[in-house]
C-alpha cells in the first residue's frame, strides 16, 4: 500500500489514509486524501487541495531542502520532471541514501522542473514503460502530427484525450510553443487543474469551456478532454470529432485500436525504456528496486548489466491512462 519508512513512522504515497504521508506528486493513485499529516511540495499540496479540499496537516517541502522526519531520517524532495510539483524523495538514514523516484521522466516539459539525477545507495524506480518497445518520440513531432490532422480535417474538431493533471497542460503548452494561438476548448473536468497551472505560473494561453459552444463553432478547433470522455456521450456535442489520445501506450498500435483512437499521439509523462536504463546507469546505485509497472524487463536489463536489483511489488497504482 506504499513504502513505509520504519524509523520515522511515515509512508510514501500510501494508498490508504495514514497518520503521516510523504506524497511524490498529485496523481490520484499516489496522492490520496485523509492523511493526518501530508508532506509534499507546495504545488502538489495545491493540487491535492483542489481534489480533496485544504488539509489541516499539510506541510510544504520545497525542492532540495531537507526535512527532518524524526527517528534520524531526513527527507529531501527533488524534481522528478513528471508533472507540476512532482518529486523524487531522497531519504537519508545512518549514512545511507535511498531515492524513491515516484513517477518521472527525462524528456523536457515546459510545465515542470526537470528530473535531477542524484547519486544514492538504493534507487527505487518506477517502471511503467519498462519494456524496450517503449521509446517515446520527441513531443514536437507528435504535436506536429496533431496540427497536421487538424489542418487536413477542417470540418471536424480534434478531440485530444489527455490525463487531466499534467498531460493536458503539457499538450496545451506544447501546442502554444508550436505556434497554435487559437482558443483551446476544455472538458469541464480539465478546467480547475488548468487554472491551477496558470496560477502556479505556467502560461496556457486562451482556454475556454467546450460546454455551451455551438457545434459549428468547434469545426477546426482543438478540444481537450479526459481519456474516459473520448468515446462517451459527452463527445456527441462535438462536430464529427477526430479522436486523438496522448499516451505512451499509443506506441503500440493495438492499444490505440482497442481504445478506438484514430490519431494516436505517443506523449508520455513517464520515462521510456531508454530513460529508465540510462537513469539507472547515471545514478549508479549499489542496488535498484523496481516497482509498479513492467518490473521483469527492467530487472533483466539490470541482470544483463551486472547490477543488483529486485522487484518491489506495490499494488494500487494505475497508469493505464498515461
Amino acid at each position, binding site marked *: 500500500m506504499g513504502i513505509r519508512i520504519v524509523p520515522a513512522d511515515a509512508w510514501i504515497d500510501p494508498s490508504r489514509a495514514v497518520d503521516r504521508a510523504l506524497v511524490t506528486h498529485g496523481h490520484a493513485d499516489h496522492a490520496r486524501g485523509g492523511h493526518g499529516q501530508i508532506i509534499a511540495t507546495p504545488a502538489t499540496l495545491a493540487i491535492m487541495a483542489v481534489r480533496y479540499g485544504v488539509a489541516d496537516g499539510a506541510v510544504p517541502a520545497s525542492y532540495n531542502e531537507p526535512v527532518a522526519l524524526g527517528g534520524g531520517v531526513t527527507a529531501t524532495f527533488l524534481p522528478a520532471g513528471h508533472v507540476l510539483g512532482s518529486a523524487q524523495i531522497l531519504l537519508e538514514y545512518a549514512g545511507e541514501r535511498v531515492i524513491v523516484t515516484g513517477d518521472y521522466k527525462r524528456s523536457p516539459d515546459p510545465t515542470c522542473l526537470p528530473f535531477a539525477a542524484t547519486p544514492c545507495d538504493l534507487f527505487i524506480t518506477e517502471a511503467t514503460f519498462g*519494456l*524496450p*518497445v517503449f*521509446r517515446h518520440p520527441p513531443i514536437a513531432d507528435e504535436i506536429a502530427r496533431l496540427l497536421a490532422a487538424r489542418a487536413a480535417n477542417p470540418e471536424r474538431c480534434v478531440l485530444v484525450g489527455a490525463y487531466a493533471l499534467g498531460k493536458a497542460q503539457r499538450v496545451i503548452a506544447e501546442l502554444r510553443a508550436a505556434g497554435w494561438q487559437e482558443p483551446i476548448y476544455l472538458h469541464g473536468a480539465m478546467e480547475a487543474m488548468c487554472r491551477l497551472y496558470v496560477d502556479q505560473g505556467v502560461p496556457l494561453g486562451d482556454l475556454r469551456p467546450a460546454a455551451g459552444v455551438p457545434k459549428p463553432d468547434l469545426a477546426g478547433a482543438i478540444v481537450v478532454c479526459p481519456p474516459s470522455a473520448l468515446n462517451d456521450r459527452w463527445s456527441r456535442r462535438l462536430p464529427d470529432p477526430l479522436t486523438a489520445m496522448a499516451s505512451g501506450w499509443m*506506441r*503500440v*498500435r*493495438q*492499444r*490505440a*485500436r*482497442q481504445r*478506438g*483512437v*484514430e*490519431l*494516436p499521439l505517443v506523449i508520455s509523462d513517464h520515462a521510456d525504456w531508454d530513460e529508465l536504463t540510462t537513469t539507472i546507469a547515471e545514478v549508479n546505485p549499489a542496488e535498484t528496486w523496481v516497482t509498479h509497472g*513492467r518490473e*521483469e*524487463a527492467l530487472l*533483466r*536489463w539490470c541482470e*544483463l548489466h551486472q547490477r543488483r536489483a529486485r522487484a518491489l511489488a506495490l499494488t494500487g497504482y494505475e497508469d493505464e491512462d498515461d
Partner: protein
Amino acid sequence: MQRFAALLDGLLLTPSRNGKLTLIADYLRETPDPDRGWALAALTGAVDFAPVKAGTVRGLMADRVDPVLWALSRDFVGDTAETASLLWPEPEPAPQGQPPTLGEVVTALTAATRANAPTLLASLLDRLDTAGRYALIKFATGALRIGISARLAKVAFAQAFAVSVDAVEEYWHGQSPPYTPLFNWATGAAPPPRTDLLPLFRPFMLAHPLENEVISLTEYVAEWKWDGIRVQLVHVNGVTRVYSRGGDEISASFPEIAGALPFPAVLDGELLVRGNQQGGEAGGAASFNALQQRLGRKTVSRALLTAAPAFVRLYDVLIDNGEDLREQPWTARRARLEALMPRLDPEQFDLSETIAAADMNALAEIRAGARDAAIEGVMLKRRESPYVAGRRTGLWYKWKREPLLIDCVLMYAQRGSGKRSSFYSDFTFGCWDGDPDAGAELLPVGKAYFGFTDEELKLLDRHVRQHTVAKYGPVRETDRSLVFEIAFDSVHVSKRHKSGLAMRFPRISRIRQDKPAHEADRIEALRALVT
C-alpha cells in the same frame, strides 16, 4: 513502402467499413503500378515469399535483442511484426537516400534464397522507420492480419475505378500480382482479361442464415446441408481442378475427384467421404471428422484412398460445355445438372437430393431429425435465383439445426492477438471425468475464443487475472471456478485429445457465474453426444 505503411496504419485505426474502403480506394487510385498491385496482393493474402517466414524475423531479432526482453515485449505487444518493428535497432549512421518502394522490395525478395533472405530483409529494414518496418515485415511474411478480408479489398478496387464488384471477382482469378491487366481493364486502358481458356475458379454463391424471414416452399426448394467442404470442379481444355471455398486449389489432395470429371464444365458441390454417419446408409457420407484426415495433403497414399474414398455431392452447374448458366434460374440449372449426371461416375459423384416437404412446418419436422442424421441442417434456395457471387439477400438461406450445449469449467487461458492483444481471450475448458465430489478431475475437452461480447471479454480477462494459480509461459491456469455453457455443432472421437473427444465449432454461449464448478457436466455426458 511509406505510403503502404500509412495505408496499413490507417486501416488499423479506422473502425468503419466505409472509412476503410475509402482509404484502400484512394491508395489504389493514387499509387503507381506495380506498387498498388503488390499492395492489393498483400491485402488479399496473395503474397508469399517462400524464403521469408515469421521465423526469419524471429531469427533476425534473436541476433539483436536479448531473448528474455524479446519474449516479454512480444507477449505485451501481441504481434511479432510490430514487436520487431519497435525493437529494431536504428542503424548508425542513418541510411542515405529514399526508403525502398514495394516494387523494389518485391524484386529483392523474389531473388532471395533461404541463405541470404535474412541479410536482405535486414538491409531493407535498416532503410525504414518504425511504421515502414512494420509494413515491410507484414508484407514480406504474407500475414497482414489487420482485419481486412479479400472481399473488402475487391469492393474497394471496384469503388476506386467505378466498376462492378462481380466483374472484379470474375476477372480476379487467373490473374497474379501485381495484377497489371486488371488495373488496365479497370482504368479503361485495356479490354477485360479472358477467363474462358483457363481452369479458373469462379466465386461461390453463399447463403445467409435463416432468421425471421418468412419462406414459402412454392418459391424455395429445400436441400440437405451436408457437412463436408464446399468445392468447385473446373474442367477446361482437358485439365480439371478442384477448388475449395476460398479458391485454393486442392486437386492434389483428391486425385480420384480431379480425375473423374471428363467433360468441360464448372460444377459446385460438397466434398464428402464415403460412410454412413450422415443420413445413415441412404445418406452415404461419413462425418466431417473422416474427411479431415484427407485435407491438407500434398500426396495421398493408396491406403488412404481406399480407407477414406472421397466423392462430391453436386449442388449446381455454373458452366456447361462453355455455356455460362449463371444468369439462368436455379430450376434451369438444376435440369442441366440432372442431365449431366448419367455422364458422371457414380463412384465419385452423386446428386444432392431435394427434400420433399409440403410447407415450412413439415420441413421443420424433417430438419429436427437432422441431428440423428448428423447433418448440419437444410438449405433453402429460391427457385428463380441466378448463381451470383457471395451472399445476396433473399436468394439462398442456410437453416442450421440448433447447437448442442454443455457446461464446462474454465481451466486455462491465453492472451489473444490483434485486437485482443493483452486480453486473455483464448479459453481451454474441461469436463469432469467422474463425480467431482468423489475426487474426479477435469479433463480438457475443447478451446474457444469467440461467442462473447467485448464487455464479457473484459469480465473474462479480469476473472483470469484474479484467479490465476499458475503460469506456463503465455498460458495461465485458473482456479477452475468459472463455468461456461459451450455451444457446439457436433462432437467426435479424437485421439488427439486426452479426453478422447473433439468438438466441432465450440463457442462460449453463456458465462454461468451462477453455477458452481462441481455442477458442470461430466465427460460421459459429452461422449453420449458423439456422432
